[in-house]
């Protein structure tokens, strides 16, 4: 342990060299830009810049690339809050309360809360990586298909029943999402599903296209109908808002701690940041006293998903270095980078490439601190965007959405799909079908299906595989409890005979 601390300080010494510090700032700024543009995403951003780093030393290269990653994690929250357009899958849950906050004129607060929570989550995960890296790596190994499925199951269960809409509309929306998620190649049999022989359907419906359309375009259509005005005009434009929000945040320490733990756990298990953010949001809504106001602009609804997403995003790097398995698409590209720089990710990297590993870990600390400072100083600038008249900003958003949709697969058909999703999103909002369950199903549906079928293949079709070990049984049971929580809760209240409290039936 002491030796590790020594190594870490050595890592800091490497990171604070002026050249590396400059790379760090450049990386963060690029990352924020990449995160803001929907569709470009951290993975694509890093893939594009990867070849530039081949002439650097591996340590400098990883510092810059991991800073792009941190920047993208920060940046994803900006468009989610300002325009209801999540730049990254894990920012979807941030829109639920972040965007309503911006509409109420509290964009500055929402952004500050999001950035700060991101930082807290990341910091928590880095400390965990520093202290318990070897232990954690062996925990990750215990995740086979049934365990992975149980994690997705828990994510779905903790999210069901959250929406304010009637349950059947929620289910209809979720099923539609599963259906859309199933289009394209079926990983398990290698056959095409529901492409109707159309070449452009081969890719299926990418989550990002759906989200840019449903949320972004749908929102623009709604705003147009309501008279061409942004409702966020009252946004404060000074740094005071940052300090005021900071004064408020320590109150949510329990929520933060819980979200950190959820995030770290999901990041280490190969599930990743997206289910972490949804799960954390769902659980926060269940537990919070103000749970019934979630979705109308609660700061807790921003803190929970952002903390968990960053804790997960950061701890996802651990399986990458210690096992060679990326916990996210961005980590996958970084992994390719490691190989090209001549480093072999795996259990031996920690002992063979101390400079590199501890430099990376030190850059996680420094990168997040630098990142937080950069994005926080820009909060007033970001919030000011909302002051631009809608008739000016709307076409700009549309162009960015279209570019984003195109970038996902370099495919013009996706831009058409984005518009179709936009109209669908508008109609769904008008008819009170919730969008979130559909998006959740598109993002996680195919992954859950894959691990479900892998489990059953391995067990020759026996469902008992989901209760075959302590780990998987526990997670499945937690999932069932989460699913039936409203029932359990009302039974409990009735048993205690306290009929006084009106139950917020949903």
């Amino acid at each position: 342990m002491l030796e590790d601390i020594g190594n870490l300080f050595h890592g800091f010494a490497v990171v604070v060299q002026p050249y590396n510090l400059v790379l760090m700032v450049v990386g963060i700024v690029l990352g924020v830009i990449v995160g803001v543009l929907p569709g470009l995403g951290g993975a694509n951003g890093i893939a594009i810049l990867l070849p530039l780093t081949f002439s650097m030393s591996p340590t400098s290269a990883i510092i810059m690339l991991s800073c792009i990653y941190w920047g993208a994690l920060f940046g994803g929250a900006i468009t989610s809050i300002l325009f209801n357009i999540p730049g990254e899958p894990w920012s979807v849950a941030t829109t639920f309360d972040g965007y309503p906050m911006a509409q109420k004129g509290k964009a500055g607060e929402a952004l500050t809360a999001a950035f700060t929570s991101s930082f807290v989550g990341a910091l928590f995960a880095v400390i965990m990586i520093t202290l318990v890296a070897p232990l954690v790596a062996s925990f990750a190994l215990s995740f086979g298909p049934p365990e992975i499925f149980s994690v997705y199951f828990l994510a779905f269960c903790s999210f069901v029943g959250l929406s304010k809409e009637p349950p059947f509309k929620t289910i209809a929306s979720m099923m539609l999402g599963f259906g859309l998620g199933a289009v394209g190649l079926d990983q398990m049999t290698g056959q095409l599903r529901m492409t109707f022989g159309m070449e452009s359907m081969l890719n299926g419906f990418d989550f990002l296209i759906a989200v840019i359309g449903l949320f972004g375009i749908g929102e623009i259509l709604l705003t147009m109908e309501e008279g061409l005005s942004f409702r966020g005009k009252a946004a404060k434009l000074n740094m005071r808002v940052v300090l005021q929000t900071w004064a408020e945040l320590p109150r949510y320490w329990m929520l933060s701690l819980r979200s950190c733990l959820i995030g770290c756990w999901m990041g280490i298990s190969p599930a990743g940041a997206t289910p972490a953010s949804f799960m954390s949001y769902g659980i926060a809504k269940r537990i919070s006293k103000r749970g019934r106001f979630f979705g109308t602009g609660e700061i807790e609804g921003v803190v929970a998903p952002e903390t968990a997403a960053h804790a997960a995003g950061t701890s996802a790097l651990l399986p990458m270095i210690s096992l060679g398995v990326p916990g996210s698409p961005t980590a996958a590209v970084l992994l390719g980078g490691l190989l090209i720089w001549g480093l072999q990710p795996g259990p031996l990297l920690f002992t063979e490439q101390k400079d590199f590993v501890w430099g990376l870990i030190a850059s996680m600390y420094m990168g997040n601190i630098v990142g937080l400072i950069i994005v926080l100083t820009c909060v007033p600038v970001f919030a000011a965007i909302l002051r631009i008249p809608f008739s000016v900003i709307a076409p700009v958003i549309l162009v960015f959405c279209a570019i984003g949709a195109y970038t996902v697969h370099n495919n013009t058909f996706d831009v058409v799909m984005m518009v179709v999703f936009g109209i669908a999103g508008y109609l769904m909002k008008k008819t009170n079908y919730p969008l979130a369950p559909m998006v959740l199903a598109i993002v996680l549906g195919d992954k859950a299906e894959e691990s479900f079928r892998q489990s059953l293949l391995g067990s020759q079709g026996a469902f008992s595989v989901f209760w075959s070990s302590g780990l998987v049984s526990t997670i499945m049971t937690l999932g069932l409890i989460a699913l039936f929580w409203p029932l359990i809760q009302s039974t409990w209240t009735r048993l205690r005979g306290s009929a006084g409290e009106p139950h917020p039936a949903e």
Partner: protein
Amino acid sequence: MSVAKTVLTIGTAAFASGVFALSALPANAWEPSHPIEIIVPAGTGGGADQMARAMQGIITKHNLSKQSVVVINKSGGAGGEGFLDVKNSKGNDHKLIITLSNLFTTPMATGIPFSWKDMTPVAMMALDEFILWVNADKPYKTAKDYVDDIKSKPDNSFKMGGTGSKQEDQIITVALQKATGKKMTYIPYKGGGEVAVQLVGNHIDSSVNNPIEAVAHWRAGKLRPLCVFDNKKLDYHEKIAGDLAWDSIPTCKSAGLDVEYLMLRGYFMPPGVSPDAVAYYVDLFKKVRETPEWKKLMSDGAFNQSFMTGDEYAKWVADAEKLHEGLMKEAGFMAKTN
């Protein structure tokens, strides 16, 4: 057993062709006038993607081309999206596609309308090897130990993990089933790295990972290579795991498993491109092969460094397609034609 023999017997003959000369090239040959696109018909982070991006880095670093190189992933429909894009870019001299075995398996398994004949073959860069791996905690020291245990147990007692469905890993698994006479449960995963970790975690019994995907776990003493699916041992003598080097791994044939399979890592261009452009890229790739970075990539991944161009390459691809067709038919993996 005879089926196993039909599995790609690919060649050492290729080595000689490394010197295949293009001295007939005119003095002021074709040059790219705008950025060169490399399509990867697979996701980011996979073997083909890594190779394409490494080449992009090498070309940039050593200034081998006046124009920059752009790598684009088009992985939809098991890579069908990328192949269709190239097929439909007739005469585009600035577009290349790097292929893996899905060049053959995707049209056969999915019915997506394309064939390698719709494209212009440029060069084979290397062949990727396959190795039979087990968890190091298991008692199997040789491929024979493992095969004997498979034979002594009922069908489906053993789980084989692999990348994708009806692609190279499953083809090898089917060949193994033929050789052992016992069925195995094949579990498809998204990527090779994931498969290797599932094997370390004992969630599957064996894998046929490419060397580069599993080497880190071998060095850490978590996985054990049993045999290589090639007709000769790997040509790398450097010690990797303790006293063992890549060339310490016996061939599967010598262990009584008559199965061979190698995967193409090569380039194609759209149909109707100018022969001068093809010559330019062949020359470019030759320069890439001379760089230390490329040599390092080859030895890290224990690649078979066959290099082929022109008619020889086309003939190789045609033979490989026939072999795949036989294997896919045998395994029942062909798409139903309506």
